[in-house]
């Protein structure tokens, strides 16, 4: 792992595919820089010729040259901005997609340790910083540097005193601005924090408007708002005052530059070293360097931001999954599931210890036991989200480590408790954005009893984020529909533990029954009701199987844990104290 960012590697990797357009961009920029240097020279020539009393036609040519150079320069500059943005977005969107693809391939061990917020920061935040680096480094920083150099060179060429003056000026102002910029950055951060707390207060109170009003707490809340406002006022004021100092200092430096140019110009003309036209040229050049100086100081700071991003993304790209793909293709239809002395630990904590069992094709198994006992881990090992530390998991008689992962994914359908829904249409939510014929999707929704609902509202209905607008039960039904659409031979269900309304409950029961037909099913049950139809029952406690057998046998044995559970009653005793 290298700690220093590889700027060059980053540039060649992401700009490589756009080599042609980058070349055009460079040409445009150089053209624009050249013209920016030339335009003041045209004015100088005009003034000097006018003083010398040249013919009007000669002066008119200078006027036309000025017009052409000005307009062409503007066009080059605009086109360069466009091209720079285009290249930047193409390159970084590719980076975003490659990075996401890579991250998807990492195992769940990685994803359990990261939050979606962090991923947004990496895949969008850091990459955007790199995009700034790519598009701006070239367009702004390099171009600004070339332009500044150009101005200094032309000035030295015109008159050494003039060159010296402009050089000293540029160096001093750059140094000043780079120093001030830090103050501005601190101010901007302070400001973001302060507004976050003001609007956080407001947002929370708006969300609780019923609570506040019904408790008659409006006046007290407004009184509580006073210190929040004072804090906002003090801190925002401080931040803005800092910012204004930065701005006014820069502006003073620039205007001092104008004054310096005038005075040096007068001095050199009086000494006879330059013409009046050249004195005007100095003034123009000093004004010309304002923008590149500002850009350079700003971009140098972006560069630091990008450096962090490049290092972090490099590290992510070096990560590799521990799950290696196999070659065996699983046959269609229901498959047997077999655990042989399986042990698994997660973050040094043993989760499963020597678990062995076999489930015949087409049969169903109900998993019972307290939360945290290892039920979910068993199902995750079956779908190979993890590999066991010891022992073998077999599906359809094949060690999962030798099975091709896409074949395995196609053969196993999973319904989790927390259904993952996207802010997208119902159709996209069912197919995960893959194209599928409407009648297949409708058939899957029919199978879970949502057919008439969806025909009313349409497959194109947008779901809110996290399934906003759908009850937990309805979300579960959509997850069932996903399984019907996939039509796998093995199904893993994690029953919802929260209470559902009776109608949804009934739909779910019907859907579950249909899922059982012709499939091998493993179901994590939170209510005894659920396992009344499974062939086998397995009770898991503290990572071990404490009871396993045909349901009817266990139910008939008065000493079994299962019949104990049946006798004492209901869901609460299964240990799921989750609200």
């Amino acid at each position, binding site marked *: 792992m290298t700690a220093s960012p590889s700027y060059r590697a980053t540039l060649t990797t992401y700009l490589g595919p756009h080599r042609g357009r980058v070349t055009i961009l460079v040409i445009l920029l150089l053209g624009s820089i050249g013209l920016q240097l030339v335009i003041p020279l045209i004015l100088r020539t*005009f003034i000097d010729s*006018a*003083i010398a009393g040249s*013919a009007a*036609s000669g*002066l*008119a040519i*200078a*006027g036309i040259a000025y*017009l052409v150079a*000005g307009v062409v320069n*503007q066009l080059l500059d*605009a086109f360069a901005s*466009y091209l720079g943005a285009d290249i930047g*977005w193409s390159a970084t*969107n590719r980076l975003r*997609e490659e990075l996401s693809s890579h991250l*998807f391939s990492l195992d*769940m061990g990685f994803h359990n340790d990261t939050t979606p917020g962090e991923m*947004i920061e990496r*895949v*969008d935040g850091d990459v955007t910083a790199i995009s700034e680096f790519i598009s701006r480094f070239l367009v702004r920083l390099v171009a600004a540097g070339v332009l500044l150099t150009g101005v200094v060179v032309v000035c030295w060429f015109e008159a050494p005193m003039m060159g010296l003056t402009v050089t000293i000026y540029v160096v001093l102002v750059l140094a000043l601005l780079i120093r001030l910029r830090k103050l501005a950055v601190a101010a901007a951060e302070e400001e973001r924090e302060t507004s976050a707390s003001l609007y956080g207060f*407001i947002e929370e109170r*708006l*969300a*609780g408007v*019923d*609570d506040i*009003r*019904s*408790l*008659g707490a*409006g006046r*007290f809340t*407004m*009184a509580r708002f006073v210190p929040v406002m*004072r804090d*906002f*006022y003090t801190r925002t*004021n401080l931040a803005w005052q800092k910012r204004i*100092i930065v701005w*006014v200092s820069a502006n003073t430096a620039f205007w001092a530059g104008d*004054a310096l140019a*005038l005075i040096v*110009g*007068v001095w050199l003309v*009086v000494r006879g070293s330059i013409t*009046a036209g050249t004195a005007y040229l100095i*003034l123009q050049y000093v004004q010309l360097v304002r923008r590149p100086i500002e850009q350079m100081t700003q971009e140098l700071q972006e560069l630091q931001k990008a450096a962090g991003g490049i290092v972090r993304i490099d590290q992510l790209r070096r990560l590799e999954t521990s799950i290696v793909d196999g070659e065996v293709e699983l046959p269609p239809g229901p498959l047997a599931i077999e655990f042989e002395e399986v042990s698994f630990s997660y973050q040094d904590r043993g989760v499963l210890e020597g678990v062995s069992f076999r489930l015949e094709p087409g049969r169903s198994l109900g998993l019972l036991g307290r939360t945290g006992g290892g039920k979910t881990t068993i199902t995750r090992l079956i*779908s190979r989200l993890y590999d066991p530390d010891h022992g073998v998991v077999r599906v359809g008689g094949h060690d999962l480590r030798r099975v091709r992962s896409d074949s395995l*994914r196609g053969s196993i359908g*999973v319904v989790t408790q927390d259904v*993952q829904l996207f*802010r997208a249409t119902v159709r*996209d939510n069912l197919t*995960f*954005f893959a194209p599928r014929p409407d009648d297949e999707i409708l058939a899957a929704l029919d199978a879970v009893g949502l057919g008439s609902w969806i025909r009313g509202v349409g497959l194109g209905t947008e779901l809110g*984020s996290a399934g906003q607008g759908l009850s937990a039960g309805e979300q579960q039904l959509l997850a069932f529909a996903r399984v019907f659409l996939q039509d796998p031979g093995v199904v893993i269900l994690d029953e919802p533990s929260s209470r559902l309304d009776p109608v949804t409950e009934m739909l779910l029961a019907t859907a579950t029954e249909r899922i059982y037909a012709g499939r091998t099913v493993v179901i994590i049950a939170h209510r005894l009701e659920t396992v009344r139809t499974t062939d086998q029952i397995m009770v898991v406690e503290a990572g071990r199987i404490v009871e396993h057998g045909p349901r009817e046998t266990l139910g008939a044995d008065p000493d079994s844990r299962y019949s104990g559970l049946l006798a004492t009653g*209901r869901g609460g005793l299964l240990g799921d104290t989750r*609200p």
Partner: protein
Amino acid sequence: MSTLRLVWEVIRYRPGRFFFCMFMWTLVHGSPLLFGILIGRVFDRLADGGSVAETAWGPAIVFAVLAIGRNLIIWLGDRVWIKHWIEQSLQLRRNLLRWVLEAPGSRVLPLAPGEAVSTFRDDVDDLLEYMENWVDMGGLVLFGVGSVWIMASIDAGLTGLLLIPILLTLVITQALSPQIRKRRRAMRSATDQVTGFIGEAFGGVQAIKLAAAERPVLDRFHQLNTVRHKAALSDTVLTEVLRGVNRNMSTITIAIVLLVAADAIGDGRFSIGDLAIFLTYLPRLTDYMAFAGDIIAQHRRTGVAYERIRALSVDAPDHELLDRARVSLQGDLPHIELPDIGIAPLRRLEVRDLSHWFPDGGEGIGGVDFAVERGSFTVVTGKIGSGKSTLVRALLGLVPSRGEVLWNDQPVEDLASFFVPPRSAYTAQVPRLFSESLADNIALGQHAARERLREAVQLAVLDPDLERLEMGLHTMIGARGVKLSGGQVQRSAAARMLATEAELLVFDDLSSALDIHTETELWRRLLAQRDVTCIVVSHRRAALQRADQILLMDRGRLVDRGTLAELLGHSELMRSLWAEAGEAA
């Protein structure tokens, strides 16, 4: 209210500061008039050459002094302006928040809280940005009129010709700048889509892996990226076009000057100094015209921003939203006690023909009549969606309703402002807590309530939780109380309600987050210690068994009432609800 009138009302908050800043900015924008003249002098003298050139020192040095002095004015003006801006933004935000939280009548926010915040932030900023333009206005006009006048006095014909491209800048900018805003917004929403999708995709990475859906998900990501790429380019193009118009117009005007001067300089009608004046004024003049064009566009937008602020308040009169009471920025914090409204203790509450309809045409409740006696325990029950919550919310004035509510046989005028402590208190089904300490959440800033904190905590069965919280009552509970469990939030809200010592307590369904034992304990403690009147929405046996009266709701109607035994005797619906409640227990 017209936009100009609106701006005037806003300015009147602190007119002294406003006009001071306007004066400073008039100096700042007007001073370049002098700069042009000084630069003109310098180059006239330099052009003459010889000993005259030596007199160019004078104007050059005056220029230096003025240029630096101008920055001092900018700094002094900005110092005041910044304070003014922040204070005024707080004034408007405070007025809006105060209306939403305190105004009489029922209040249903027309927007989700997240969206409503953007009105507090962006719409208020829009309004102030527009007001800021008026600070610049004096200087813009001064420079515009002054520069045109000076140039015209040098060459009237030429200046007339130059006005065409200059005014064109104004026209084009004001037409294009709304487009820029639109594209910025499109860009922002495309970015939100991308980041939202990344969050969802990695939040659900397990589901994606299990469904082997990596490829289609990445394809979708690619689509969203492409949309964002296009939006960004479209934004760039328009920005460049606008900048191009501005800069090209400036180039064109200077080229015109050069072409005209080519002729005029020869015969002495136009000096090098005159040329320098034109070259100094013209770029600034086109800049200011672009600025003016932008102001015109903003003028239209400002009315819309204020409309949105008004819409969020639902019914606030202008004088409330623009209330000029100073924002309290220093001194002691306001100390507020509950006003002694001298209430008559509740003897009997009666509801007659209470109805509510949802604005989207959804089923509400209709024609509900019932009465509650002092010290009684009333349970409202029914199936999901039967209108239980709506009934109590309508009673308390949280949603608009029709019908009559009588407190001790006296009709209540405005339900929302009447049903507050010490008359009544309420706990919502999903109560909202705030990111402060637990104690502050329960007392809600009321000093009187602080004294009752311990008792309220005990009544709400929150005391066992306090022992487990690191800092007890002083624990900071995080945004919306995320650091608490669902049950703790529910009990904290109950404690908050109990701390008010209100006569009538209204609970909207505690069961979703309280287990059965805790709920039973809560009722036991509450009824044992206090002479309270309760209206409780519940389907739990723990509540039903205690009820003096049960109100049975079905499809928005009150279909039956009575004691548990009576209802179990004759109501099929009650029997099925009772059976279901047993399942849950």
